[in-house]
């Protein structure tokens, strides 16, 4: 255990000085192997075998279909459609941002893609209409996490594979909390803006004109909205595995982008595919080195020792669940969601088994917590990315972000943790 703690300390130090996450774990594995006298040379082969698993193919396929949908101009169509419902009310553009991020998540599964695609359009539009810039930036940052919670979710694919559970069930575990969080964020957005006098709202349209706008924009966005229905429908009716559903999504995207929308020319297709491969490489690199390190940890029985350590603090289920939440939050504040889900699966699974926690409920706790960690300073990649896209200083949006997190995401973490039905109801329908 002492060698493991030394390795983890080095990993944390390397993460803090901005060494890429994957390399930090690779170095941690080497340190652990060297100090403990464990031969880890064969672990590279183990990591390779794990990342070449057939089930992980869903990751590149969903990333590529999401990237290509973005390149096809889908975000504009989705925004216009949602905007036709609530865009002409005070705070309406904020709600449009939240809902479009959720819909975009159902297509791409990428939080950073949601920030890039939605943030670049919506934040300037909100600021132009008088929204406080800090509020607009905070809103896109917190809403981007919805893309991680609403399926297809890359962290949930990885987590389900790591704990050997159904990917389809893990997808559904965070879907309910994700939708609830979207509603809460919309409500908070309206609440925070209630006294803001700078917002200029476009004049309301007569009801027939509103219905006409909804019909027009809805028709333009139909093919985009259908995609998650095809993908999730395919998975949950048992017609396709998540990997096959990813392939269907890709072919659907190619047909829509090239033949129907006619917006996906060869140049954007090439660039987007390379971008998707690069993103996939970044995720798989983290997984590769994490698998290498985890192998050493499992052989040294680190997860079991860790479970014993937590249970020695208290055997009260509520206390243990709170401790798990704190650990996941800290994890999410230091590392990315994919690494967090693997580490949570390896380190925390034994303790959850000992307190009788349903693995799918655990998946929901992990998914909700890591999302919170990714936008919580000091290491908040999604938050800083939102600031980078909107060109706002941290001091401008840190306050509004904390308000959204404390009043929105944190209560949701507790609800998911202590009301299992929230996350188990939808997966239960598959039994």
């Amino acid at each position, binding site marked *: 255990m002492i060698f493991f703690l030394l390795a983890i300390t080095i990993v944390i130090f*390397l*993460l*803090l*000085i*901005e*060494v*890429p*996450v*994957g*390399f930090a774990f*690779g*170095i941690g594995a*080497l340190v652990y192997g060297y100090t403990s006298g464990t031969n*880890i*040379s064969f*672990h*590279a*082969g183990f990591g*390779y075998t794990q*990342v*070449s*698993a*057939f089930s992980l*193919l869903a990751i*590149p*396929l969903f990333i*590529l*279909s999401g990237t290509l949908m973005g390149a096809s101009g889908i975000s504009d169509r989705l925004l216009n459609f949602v905007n036709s419902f609530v865009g002409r009310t005070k705070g309406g553009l904020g709600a449009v941002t939240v809902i479009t991020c959720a819909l975009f998540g159902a297509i791409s599964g990428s939080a950073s893609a949601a920030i890039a695609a939605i943030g670049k359009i919506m934040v300037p539009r909100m600021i132009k209409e008088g929204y406080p810039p800090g509020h607009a930036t905070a809103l896109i940052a917190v809403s981007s996490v919805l893309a991680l919670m609403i399926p297809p979710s890359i962290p949930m694919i990885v987590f389900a594979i790591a704990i050997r559970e159904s990917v389809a069930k893990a997808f559904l575990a965070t879907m309910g909390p994700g939708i609830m969080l979207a509603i809460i964020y919309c409500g908070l957005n309206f609440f925070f803006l209630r006294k803001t006098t700078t917002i200029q709202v476009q004049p309301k349209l007569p009801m027939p004109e509103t219905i006409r706008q909804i019909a027009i924009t809805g028709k333009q966005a139909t093919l985009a909205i259908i995609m998650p229905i095809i993908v999730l429908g395919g998975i949950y009716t048992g*017609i*396709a595995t998540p*990997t*096959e559903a990813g*392939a*269907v999504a*890709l*072919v659907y995207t*190619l047909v829509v982008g090239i033949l129907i929308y006619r917006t996906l020319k060869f140049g954007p297709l*090439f660039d987007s*595919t*390379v971008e*998707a*491969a*690069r993103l*996939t*490489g*970044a*995720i*798989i*690199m*983290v997984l*590769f080195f994490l698998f290498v390190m985890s192998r050493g940890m499992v052989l040294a029985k680190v997860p079991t020792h860790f479970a014993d350590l937590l249970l020695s603090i208290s055997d009260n289920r509520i206390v243990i669940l709170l401790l798990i939440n704190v650990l996941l939050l800290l994890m999410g504040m*230091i*590392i*990315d969601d*994919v*690494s967090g889900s693997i580490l949570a699966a390896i380190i925390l699974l034994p303790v959850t088994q000992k307190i009788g926690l349903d693995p799918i409920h655990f998946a929901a706790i992990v998914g909700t917590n890591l999302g919170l960690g990714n936008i919580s300073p*000091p*290491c908040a*990649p999604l938050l*800083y990315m939102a600031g980078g896209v909107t060109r706002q200083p941290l001091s401008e949006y840190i306050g509004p972000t904390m308000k959204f997190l404390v009043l929105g995401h944190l209560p949701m973490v507790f609800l998911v943790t202590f009301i299992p039905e929230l996350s188990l109801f939808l997966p239960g329908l598959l039994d």
Partner: protein
Amino acid sequence: MTKELLHTDSLDDVVGAEAVRPVPQGTKVVAAVHGGLGPLFAAERGLALAMRVTMFVAMIALGLLMAAQVFMRYAISSPFLGIEELAPLLAVWVYFIGMAYCSRERDHIEGGMLTLVVKNPRTLMAVRLFGSVVVLIAVVIFFWFAWNFMAFNYSLGRKSTYMRLPKVLWDMSMIIGLGLMVFYGALQILAEIRGLIALKGDEK
């Protein structure tokens, strides 16, 4: 967050024609980092193009192959088991070339708070150089492990179950990917050392 100094969006920015940010264009630092390395970076651009083409072809082929699998299974009730071997083969090439391309673009997933805490450019560059050296050592060691893994599989003459393709085709992806990461890691260190020396000279 981490792209402000030497770790910019792409290697082209770091050591190619563009400036080492935030050092102003035309300073001694830029000249010192770039000087005399033109042919190396011209060759590197060719290599990067080859990586992009490989990723594009493998990624699209992977998607179409998997879609064909769904079609064959449900439309003509005749799945082709070889696809279950070919798809991971394409995937591992996407993964490892994608990883190497991330090294080129300095775009790996990272967290940290160095840039929030350290404001002195020289200190920042020195800490990053330390990180880059540690990373390079680790990647070289993993490259060595991967080489042994491939050599072991080769010595056994392992082949895939259905297509009877040599397993080396799969393993080579890891060797080439890690090899490219070693190359880009070394190139980054070279740029960082030259940048640090030149920055010190500028301050004098």
